[in-house]
C-alpha cells in the first residue's frame, strides 16, 4: 500500500521549471554569444542573429533570476521539505541522512525507508551549491548587462575586478550547470527506479508516495 503526501508547493514546482527551462535557453544562447557559429554574409539581411540571441539570453536571465528569488524565499518561508534546515548537514538527523545517502548511492548499503519526504541531504546540498553558483551568475550577468549602472559597476568591480574576469567566471560556471543538469536527470531516473516514491512525477504533481505497512 502506498500513501500519497503533498510534498512540493506550486511555487517550488514553478521555480523548478522556470529554472530548468531558463538554463536550457541560457546555455544555448550563451554559447552563441560567446562564439557565434554563424556568419551573416549577406549585407542588409536584417536577420540580427547576435541581437536576437542576446535578447533571448537576457530574457532567460531575468526568468533565471526570478526563479532564484523564489527559491531563496522558499528556503526560509517554504513548507517543511523546502526549508533550508531540512537540508543543511548541521543537525544529527541530516548528517545521518547524508551518510546513508552516500552509502546508498555507492551501492554499499541499501537505504531503508526514507526518514524524510523532501530532498535527501546530498541532493539538497548540491542544490544549495547550484543556487550559490546561480547567484554568482546573476551578479556577473547583470554586471555585464548594466556596466554603467553604479550599483552593478561597484559590485562587479569589487567581486570580479573587471568585465573580462566576470565574463570568464560566467562562462566557467555555465559548465557547472550543464554537468549538474546531466547528473540531476540521471539521479532522478536512478531514484525513480530504486524507490517507489515517484520522484519524477512529484515535480509535476507535487505529490510523493510512502510505503505503508497495511
Amino acid at each position, binding site marked *: 500500500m502506498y500513501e500519497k503526501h503533498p510534498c512540493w508547493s506550486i511555487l517550488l514546482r514553478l521555480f523548478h521549471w522556470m529554472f530548468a527551462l531558463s538554463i536550457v535557453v541560457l546555455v544555448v544562447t550563451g554559447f552563441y554569444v560567446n562564439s557565434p557559429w554563424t556568419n551573416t554574409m549577406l*549585407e542588409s539581411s536584417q536577420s540580427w542573429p*547576435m541581437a536576437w540571441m542576446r535578447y533571448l539570453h537576457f530574457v532567460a536571465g531575468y526568468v533565471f533570476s526570478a526563479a532564484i528569488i523564489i527559491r531563496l524565499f522558499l528556503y526560509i518561508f517554504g513548507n517543511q521539505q523546502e526549508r533550508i534546515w531540512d537540508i543543511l548537514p548541521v543537525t544529527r538527523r541530516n548528517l545521518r541522512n547524508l551518510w546513508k545517502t552516500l552509502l546508498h548511492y555507492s551501492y554499499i548499503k541499501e537505504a531503508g525507508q526514507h526518514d524524510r519526504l523532501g530532498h535527501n541531504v546530498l541532493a539538497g546540498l548540491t542544490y544549495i551549491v547550484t543556487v550559490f553558483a546561480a547567484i554568482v551568475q546573476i551578479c556577473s550577468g547583470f554586471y555585464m548587462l548594466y*556596466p554603467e549602472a553604479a550599483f552593478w559597476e*561597484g559590485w562587479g568591480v569589487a567581486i570580479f*575586478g*573587471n*568585465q573580462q574576469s566576470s565574463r570568464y567566471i560566467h562562462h566557467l560556471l*555555465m559548465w557547472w550547470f550543464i554537468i549538474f543538469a546531466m547528473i540531476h536527470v*540521471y539521479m532522478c531516473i536512478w531514484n525513480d527506479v530504486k524507490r517507489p516514491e515517484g520522484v519524477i512525477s512529484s515535480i509535476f504533481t507535487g505529490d510523493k508516495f510512502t510505503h505503508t505497512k497495511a
Partner: protein
Amino acid sequence: MADTVHNTLDPQLNRRGFLKGCTMAAAALGLSETMIPKLVEAAAAAERPRVVWLHFQECTGCTESLLRASHPDLAHLILDVISLDYHETVMAAAGHQAEEILQKTVTEHAGKFILVIEGAIPTKDGGIYCKVGGKTAMDTLAEIGPKAAAIIAIGTCATFGGVQAASPNPTGAVGVMDLISGVPVVNIPGCPPNPMSFLGTVLHYLTFKRLPAMDSLNRPLFAYGRRIHDHCERRPHFDEGRFVEQFGDEFHKAGYCLYKVGCKGPETFSNCPAVRFNDVDVWPVSVGHGCVGCTEPNFWDTMTPFYDRLPMVKIPGTGIIADADSVGTKVLGVTAAAIGIHAAVGIGKRLIKGKGNE
C-alpha cells in the same frame, strides 16, 4: 625657472591653436559650447597650477604620446596650461639642479601642486627595483604624494600596475591607488591613454576647482564612462552577426566586427571610438585590430590571449593550460563516463542479486 619647456621650446602657441585645444577638451568632457569661454579663461589664468611629473617603472610612452601628438597644439596647450616644474623627460635641468627644483616646488607649494605619476611602483624587497636620484619610487611617492593637492596617475602602469604587475609580478609592482590614501587620485589608464583624457581632467580641475566625476576605479567618467563596444563603429556588424573569422579574410576586408578575433571592446571602458587618436581620427578598431582592453585592471592577465575571447584555464599544480570550453567538455565527458559506470554497476548488481525486496 619653472617654465623652461614653454619658454625655450615652444614660444609659439597661437590663439587659434589654444582655442581649438580648449574646444576639443570641452567636447571630450561633454561640456556645452557655452562653457568653452570659462575653460579658456581658466586655462589662460596667470597663476597656472604647478605640476610635478614623476617617472617610475614605465616606458615613457605616455609622455611620448602626449608630447608627440600629431596635433602639435595639444601638447603645447598642455604645457601652456600647466607649469611643469619637474619632468624628467623634458626638463633641461639635470642632477642636483633638478632635485633642487623638485624639492623647492614640493615645499613651497605644498598642498597646491598637482602630482602626475607615470609608471608603476615596485614594492618587493623594499622597492629597490626602481630608483631615481638614489631614492626608491616607493620612498619618493610616500614623501611627495601626501603633499600634493591631487594625484593624476597617467597610464595603465601608474593606475593598475600595467605590464610590470602581470603575473607573476616579480617586482611587486602596484599602481598609485594602492599606496596613497588621503589625497585624491585620478586614474587615466591606457597604454598609452588618450592625451585628451589627461587634458580634459586638468582643464576640468582648473575650471571647476574640483576633480571630474569618477567611477569606482577612480577613472573620470567623461573618458571612461562607456564601453568601447557600445560606441564602436563596427557595432552594427556585431548585432547583425557579421564577423571577421581571421585576420586578412574577406570579412576583415569588408570591415566586419572583430569580436571573433578577440576584440575586448565589450569588456573595456574608454572613449577611444569617440575621441580617437593622433588627430587623424583613427583608433585600433578603425584600422582593423581588436581592442586589447588596455584601460582595465590586470589587463595583461585577464585580456590575454589578445586574439581569443576568454582567458585560458590554468589548472594549478598540473601545468595544464587549456581553453575553458575544452576543459568543460572533458569534465562533462568524464561525468558522463562516471554516470555510465554507476548505472552499469547498478544493473550488474541487480542481475546478480535479483530485484531485492522493495
